């Protein structure tokens, strides 16, 4: 039989949250919109066509027709002056000129110019009647787990677990403190730890819903999959939720106003948004900074979420970042209990 006070406190917190439409939007709809926007902005596109030009001459029309059959090239007809000018300014990468036989004019240090030369020559040779000795076939590769969206979704999930964990716990506590509700609660026989645990349990309920929501959405819209064990993934999300609820409790443990707690929350969260590899990999930071970045809870959560989702990692592979998360959660919870201001 669970402690009735914990059950009632958790129920109250859940009710309070779902009766606040704005909060529901920020927790559920906002991450979806963010995923959608970033997913489309950075979706995988077919390679760009390479712009080339044919200079006016006896065979110009014939060559241009042949070249325009290549899917890789974007061909146009230009006068010699225009063509030279555009080649010089990089608007086109290759010039096809000559009276009887084609002459390719290009900068060989540009990789796309060399591709264009090979493609253009191939197209013109075929048009001139060259027969292929055999028919080759192409197979295109797009490895799942290597796209930007595969990198992005675990990062957004981690960011969301951090944001909702900290705001969800922090705001409700500071609000209750401002309304003297905390003081009223400790005037009853309620155990103080019950109140803090209920904050944590109610977070876990929302967390389950918000993770499921985002993961199903990413799967349906972007075909992002969890390659590792779903159970490992679920437990990892709970550990992440626990760590950030703990940090949220600590941040809110003494704040007397919403302004104060908002400032402190941002102070804690903004560096992690930037450093912890939400939108881009923290590999870009200098090597000396990396041990500190890896010690941040959001880095630990993002690293282990990516390992489980994209590489199918098990517990052994993510032991270090999970250890970091548990340590953050436990230490912050203990400190919050110690320093919590009830009135």
């Amino acid at each position, binding site marked *: 039989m669970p402690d*009735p*006070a914990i*059950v*009632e*406190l958790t*129920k*109250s917190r859940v*009710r*309070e949250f779902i*009766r*606040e439409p704005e909060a529901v939007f920020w927790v559920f709809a906002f991450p979806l919109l963010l995923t959608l926007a970033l997913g489309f902005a950075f979706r995988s596109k077919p390679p760009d066509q390479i712009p080339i030009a044919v200079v006016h001459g006896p065979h110009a029309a014939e060559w241009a027709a042949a070249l325009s059959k290549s899917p890789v090239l974007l061909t146009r007809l230009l006068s010699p002056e225009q063509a030279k000018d555009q080649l010089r300014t990089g608007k086109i990468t290759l010039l096809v000129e000559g009276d009887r036989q084609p002459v390719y004019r290009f900068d060989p240090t540009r990789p796309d110019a060399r591709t264009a030369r090979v493609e253009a020559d191939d197209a013109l040779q075929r048009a001139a009647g060259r027969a292929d000795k055999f028919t080759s076939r192409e197979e295109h590769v797009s490895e799942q787990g290597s796209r930007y969206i595969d990198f992005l979704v675990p990062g957004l999930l981690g960011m969301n677990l951090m944001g909702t964990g900290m705001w969800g716990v922090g705001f409700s506590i500071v609000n*209750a403190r401002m*309304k*003297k*509700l905390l*003081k*009223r*609660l*400790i*005037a*009853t*026989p*309620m155990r103080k730890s019950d109140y803090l645990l209920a904050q944590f349990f109610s977070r876990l309920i929302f967390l389950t819903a918000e993770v499921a929501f985002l993961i199903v959405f990413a799967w349906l819209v972007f075909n992002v999959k969890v390659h590792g064990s779903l159970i490992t993934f679920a437990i990892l999300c709970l550990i992440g939720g626990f760590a950030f609820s703990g940090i949220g409790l600590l941040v809110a443990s003494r704040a007397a106003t919403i302004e104060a707690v908002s400032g402190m929350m941002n102070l804690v969260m903004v560096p992690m948004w930037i450093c912890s590899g939400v939108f881009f990999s923290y590999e870009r930071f200098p090597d000396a900074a990396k041990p500190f970045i890896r010690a941040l809870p959001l880095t630990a959560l993002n690293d282990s979420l990516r390992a489980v989702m994209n590489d199918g990692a098990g517990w052994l592979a993510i032991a270090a970042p999970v250890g970091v998360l548990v340590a953050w959660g436990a230490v912050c919870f203990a400190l919050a209990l110690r320093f919590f201001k009830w*009135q």
Partner: protein
Amino acid sequence: MSESAIHCRDLRKHYPDVKAVDGVDLIIARGECFGLLGPNGAGKTTTIEILEGLTPADGGDVEVLGMRWNGHARELRERIGISLQETQFTDKLTVIETLTLFRSFYREGHEPDELLRTLSLEEKRNSRVGKLSGGQKQRLAVACALVGQPDILFLDEPTTGLDPQSRLQLWEVVTRFRAGGGTVLLTTHYMDEAQRLCDHIAIVDHGKVIARGTPDELIAKLDAPNIIEFTSEPAMPAEAFDDLCVGYHGCAKRGPGWQLRVDSLAEAVPRLIAIVEKSGSKLVTLSTHAATLEDLFVALTGRELRDA
């Protein structure tokens, strides 16, 4: 078992800028209603919160139901009910949800629905707390204080800001709780509330008890059952009333006019009118009433309760 519900000796609480409680002794018997009466800032709330175990005292000794806060806090919390001066419950929860939450903290207590009936809140059972009127919120606060079936009920300014009907309803709740054998300690700055509800009253000012007793005893301290209040144009000096009549007990400045304490109105009023006329002043207002605790406070401090 100790006879008194609450016993405190030489209670002190000093803040850097003010001595909020400065040597208060109280003995509150089981089953009585005890009132701390005083103006805002007199130290009533600090005193009651020390007794409730919410604020630590700087000095003195508190015993509640024969126990001390240090060591018996949880046991005491089970047996007292508290309504703070300005608690706001969560707006998004309903009345019954709020009361059920508070019920869950106590080992024993009332059925929440039964309590809502007692407090005439059953119609608001499923309303959000944010939609309640001031009086309904206050009754909910008292319901939350009563839900653990306490032996002692602490009410800090339970009717401040309420309309007359809501005040009457709350007074009824207090009366009913006492009928069941409960002890009540309340603070108020309404002398009519104290006079009507309380068996014993301590009048508090600047952190000290300046008078104590039953309402009748306190009024008797005035030595005068009747009060005359009047203003004149121009105002009169205090010496003008010195030989008003036999049974004149003194005066106090009240606003632009005077308050005179007398035994007999029939004797004093005609004499007063004659004195005013003789001095060449004009009487502007004149009223009389039977002495109240308010008058005692004015006589003791020279200030009024409401805005002292």
